């Protein structure tokens, strides 16, 4: 049919695309204009003092853990350590908001979250010591293996939470990622799948200002990382990542929402990486002292400690107690990390397949012969020179 055949030009009115309708109202999904805070505000009065004290003790312990792990790199006991100093509020809160049956999906910078969830620090650090990739049974602790390829563990969290719901289990998955990770495709795909499936997942973005050396301004042009949630049809929450009470509250609400069938939430916690990316990095090449100093005044341990002291919930003795407990943890960690791990080279072939292939059996035999020859050489004084 051509235009000329229409019954008169006056009767013709353009219409909207026939199938279009808005899928989701964006207004309730938008994050607050500023990071949500509890400490130093009226909201702190509504928080259980026991929780604040628990958070304080964990923050002190977490800070000490970061210092000890960093020291272990200098002593050659860790191959590398990506410190979460300055980010302890996020790490601690992420662990404490979960029930035992829930799952945590940490990145390589989140060993502290795993430790706060109850994992032995030695087991949390085997990846970084370099003796084994994962030092714990993920299913026993409901902590996924520490994930190094950025954001690739986020779809796992979605799939696990989805599977748990299909099986009728009340399980929430909390996945951790950094600001740099939000640029990865897997971040996008995970959030999209989670929203479409209404999976019980919480995504915690620790915006610590840098992806190694690249600042956030070169990472995104979004109003905030929390705003990214809106495009997927899930709520975005913006929170002060150094305010442990605020992070705990916002994450708790997100976990509760997921648990009750409300679907996923994206939480952006604004924080700062006080140390370099790892011990192998030099942060002076990309940021100035004044910026670091400004954040030192907004330190998560100090924020909590000052609040508790001001409110009369904590005295010098209480602070001392928390520090002493942290020292005991550090001493135990130091002592146990000073022991050389006992490794069996034949383990290289043990867990590639359920059943070893013929080819791997042959290669294992070859290594066994090499090891036997090495032992023979070491067993004789000529060191093999006699050959």
């Amino acid at each position, binding site marked *: 049919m051509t235009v000329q055949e229409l019954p008169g030009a006056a009767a013709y009115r353009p219409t909207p695309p026939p199938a279009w309708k808005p899928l989701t109202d964006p207004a309730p999904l938008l994050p607050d204009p500023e990071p949500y805070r509890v400490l130093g505000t009226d909201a702190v009065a509504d928080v259980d003092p026991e929780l604040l004290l628990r958070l304080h003790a964990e923050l002190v312990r977490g800070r000490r853990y970061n210092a000890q792990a960093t020291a272990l790199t200098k002593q050659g006991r860790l191959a590398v350590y990506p410190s979460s100093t300055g980010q302890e509020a996020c790490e601690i809160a992420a662990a404490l908001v979960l029930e035992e049956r829930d799952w945590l999906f940490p990145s390589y910078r989140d060993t502290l979250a795993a430790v706060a969830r109850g994992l032995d620090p030695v087991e949390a650090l085997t990846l970084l010591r370099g003796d*084994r*990739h*994962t030092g714990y*049974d*993920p*299913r*026993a602790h409901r902590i*996924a*293996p520490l994930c190094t*390829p950025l954001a*690739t563990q*986020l*779809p*796992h*969290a*979605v*799939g*696990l*939470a*989805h*599977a*748990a719901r*299909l*099986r009728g289990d009340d*399980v929430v*998955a909390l996945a951790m990622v950094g600001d740099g990770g939000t640029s990865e*495709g*897997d971040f996008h*795909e*995970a959030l*999209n*799948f989670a929203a*479409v499936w209404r999976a019980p997942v919480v995504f915690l973005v620790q915006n610590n200002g840098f992806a190694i050396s690249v600042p956030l301004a070169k990472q995104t042009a979004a109003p905030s990382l929390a705003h990214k949630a809106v495009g997927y049809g899930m709520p975005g929450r913006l929170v002060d990542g150094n305010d442990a009470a605020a992070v705990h509250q916002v994450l708790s609400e997100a976990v509760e929402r997921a648990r009750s069938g409300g679907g996923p939430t994206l939480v952006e916690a604004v924080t700062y990486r006080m140390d370099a990316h790892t011990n192998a990095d030099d942060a002076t090449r990309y940021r100035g002292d004044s910026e670091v100093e400004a954040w030192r005044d907004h330190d998560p341990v100090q924020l909590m400690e000052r609040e508790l002291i001001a409110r009369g919930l904590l005295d010098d003795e209480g602070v001392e107690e928390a520090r002493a407990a942290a020292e005991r943890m550090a001493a135990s960690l130091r002592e146990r990390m000073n022991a050389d791990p006992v490794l069996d080279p034949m383990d290289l072939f*043990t*867990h*590639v*397949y*359920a059943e070893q*292939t*013929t*080819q791997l059996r042959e290669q294992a035999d070859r290594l066994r012969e090499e090891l036997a020859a090495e032992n023979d050489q070491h067993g004789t004084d000529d060191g093999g020179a006699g050959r």
Partner: protein
Amino acid sequence: MTTAAATAGERKAKAKPATMAQALGRALRDSMADDPMVHVLGEDVGTLGGVFRITDGLAKEFGDERCTDTPLAEAGILGAAVGMAMYGLRPVVEMQFDAFAYPAFEQLFSHVAKMRNRTGGAMPLPITVRVPYGGGIGGVEHHSDSSEAYYMATPGLHVVTPATVEDAYGLLRASIASDDPVVFLEPKRLYWSKADWSPEQPTVVEPIGRAVVRRPGRSATLITYGPSLPVCMEAAQAAVEEGWDLEVVDLRSLVPFDDETVAASVRRTGRAVVVHESTGFGGPGGEIAARITERCFHYLEAPVLRVAGFDIPYPPPMQERHHLPGVDRVLDAVARLQWEADN
């Protein structure tokens, strides 16, 4: 299906021609019926039944939650499958086409292949990744790749590819039952190949990792798999006129690799040609030729030759017949196996 007592004659009488596509669909259906943990997910696998209709009827029979249309994102699909497997499910993922599986490579290489290893055996991932692969169907760009070498080069994955209707069923069932991740490569130009096969008859579920001699012969061995098996069978038939009695080995499993069957055959015949669509340089044929040489050097009458796709990006469909190894190219290779030395 308690028809084990049926005689071979009865079986044959009952069997009707079935396509490889139907056998694959039946394998999925039977796996889902036997094990409630088996879940199928991918693009268009639900309502539509997949672009090749392999999953036809599954969503209807088992519901959308067992056979799920996902958002269009291959890394997301496979990444979600990892999480599902972590929680005890047995996901079967469909990648729509060979080249569309590439976005999922990071999930496949960094997580699916390594999870058993990186967790010290604590968390194996029983995931089957179905990938339609290969050319010869007149597909436009990005629809005809032979991607098997990428998967073969990744420790932790099994790589399986059927070439017959019966194997399509048996190997897919074995793959889904495997506690290791399996990349299940489906030769899409054989989807509509037919054989007398009845799903109602007991079908052997072959263990993964065994090659099979499809045609015994004495002159030389053609080693092949998937879409190139019919080419090799035809070549072996044509070779009779030239006086060559060719043996044809169907690998069926690229990982684990059946060195025993391959080496036994080449030791018998003394000559070997590897045939596949994948590129020759860096392709599976190089690995296979090296393995034969390492094991059969003193039995060989001639160098192991390869007939492979050219080392070019897959050509446009109007040119693909020049690229794909055909009967003549296979026979030419056989002719170059230094027969004059026998005289």
